[in-house]
């Protein structure tokens, strides 16, 4: 019963997780207040012979309080979320000159185009590897997502990254891994009968290992 967020391995995951737990605490408090209130009222005011209910049509003061308090909390939350969102997905958030990969989704494969030895995408030395995504840690990388057929969604839980790949669109996202290891890309948008098995290997190297791997692949092709 492992009901927790998986290990986080990205810079944006730190803020996402923090925001998740802030909301968890806020909603947790509200949850306890509401549920405890309901249980308490249910017991305290349960039917008794001769008891007559208090006749009231409401209280302006109480209603103003329980309108204003959630409104203020939610407004603050909204503004905070908006700031974090802009840092991750905003128009100017995309890092300049970061290592870029093309990821083309199709039923039911992830085809990753690597920049090759020159480190630049869309050049002659690019090479494509199916269902294997290798990239270096500790530097921002950009993934340009495309789809050949239907909508897929690029999801790496440990990187706290999820973005739909939509046919006819190229959608750039970025992230920066803070550690190395082997993980998986999962498809998070129903894409047909092979949706559940549309996974790919993710290997996060340190930079030297990545360069070595990339050179090896380029030579092999």
């Amino acid at each position: 019963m492992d009901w927790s967020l998986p290990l986080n391995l990205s810079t944006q995951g730190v803020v996402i997780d923090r925001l998740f737990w802030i909301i968890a605490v806020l909603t947790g408090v509200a949850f306890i207040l509401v549920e405890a209130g309901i249980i308490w009222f249910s017991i305290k005011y349960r039917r008794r012979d001769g008891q007559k209910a208090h006749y009231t049509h409401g209280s302006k003061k109480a209603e103003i309080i329980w309108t204003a308090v959630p409104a203020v909390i939610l407004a603050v939350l909204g503004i905070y979320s908006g700031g974090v969102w802009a840092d991750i997905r905003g128009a100017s958030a995309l890092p300049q000159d970061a290592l870029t990969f093309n990821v083309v989704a199709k039923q039911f494969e992830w085809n990753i185009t690597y920049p090759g030895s020159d480190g630049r995408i869309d050049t002659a030395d690019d090479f494509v590897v199916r269902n294997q995504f290798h990239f270096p840690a500790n530097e921002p990388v950009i993934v340009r997502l495309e789809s050949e057929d239907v909508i897929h969604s690029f999801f790496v839980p440990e990187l706290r990254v999820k973005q739909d790949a939509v046919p006819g669109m190229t959608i750039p996202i970025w992230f920066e891994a803070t550690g190395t290891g082997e993980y998986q890309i999962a498809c998070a948008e129903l894409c047909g009968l092979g949706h559940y098995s549309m996974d790919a290997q993710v290997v996060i190297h340190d930079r030297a290992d990545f360069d070595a791997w990339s050179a090896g692949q380029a030579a092999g092709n």
Partner: protein
Amino acid sequence: MRSEFLKKVSVLVAAGAMAACGGGDSGGGDPGGDAGGGEAPAAAQVDPATVGTISGTINFAGDSPAPTAIDMSAEADCAAGYGPDGPMSNNVIAANGRLANVFVHLTGVSGGPAPSGSVQLDQENCRYMPHVLGVQVGQNIEITNSDDLLHNINASPTENRGFNISQPRAGITSNQSFPLAEVMVPVRCDVHGWMQAYIGVVDHPYFGVSGPDGSFTIPNVPAGTYTAEAWHEAYGAMSGSVTVTAGGTATLSFDYSSDMAGAHVPLGEPLVIRHGEHGIEVHRGAQD
């Protein structure tokens, strides 16, 4: 393709009604027919005095293309099924001047002994076995998954109704058939982009597929003169003539060459390449 909507819908509605009534779409598969193994049972109904055999080879001139490696590294279970060289593509096998995986069938013939038994299509180590196969109209194709992982079988014919089914684990068997003749029906697996097979559907039992040695045999052909057609996924189609005598074995050979590589091979409508006076002539069978 889409302009044929009405035709398609009528086929669909009929098929839908069939499935709704029959509770399944196992096609013409005869449950008891598996016993014969699908090889020889047709012979039982045939008078040997009136039939002969067509036997021949598919010759290949020029340099044989080098087999290409398949990168199965993301599917380790499958990759493990191959030797140190790793998995190689099996779509073009040309060696020793012979060409394998050529589908040969008689044209202008229909009828003959009804299909009996099933034809097997296996998925083993992420490859279709066999790569090219022939079936009769309505004959059951028994599709089996020998890999313990997901394969889907996506057949995209143009004349018949296609199917796109899956087999998520080892040991699952599905049965399919095609009601109309069509050479060829391409089959692919979308989980493993390299997996492809071709099914030739004809409305008679007179067909064969060349083996690794480039030879093929079509048994139990009634005596007479026929036109035969050969089809290969990379080198196109060609036709030849053959006369079968009762009790005899007629020889029929087709000559492919490496020059024909890259020939456009439309699927579904037979493409005929003839060696004419001005080199190779290409005709689309449907327009003849």
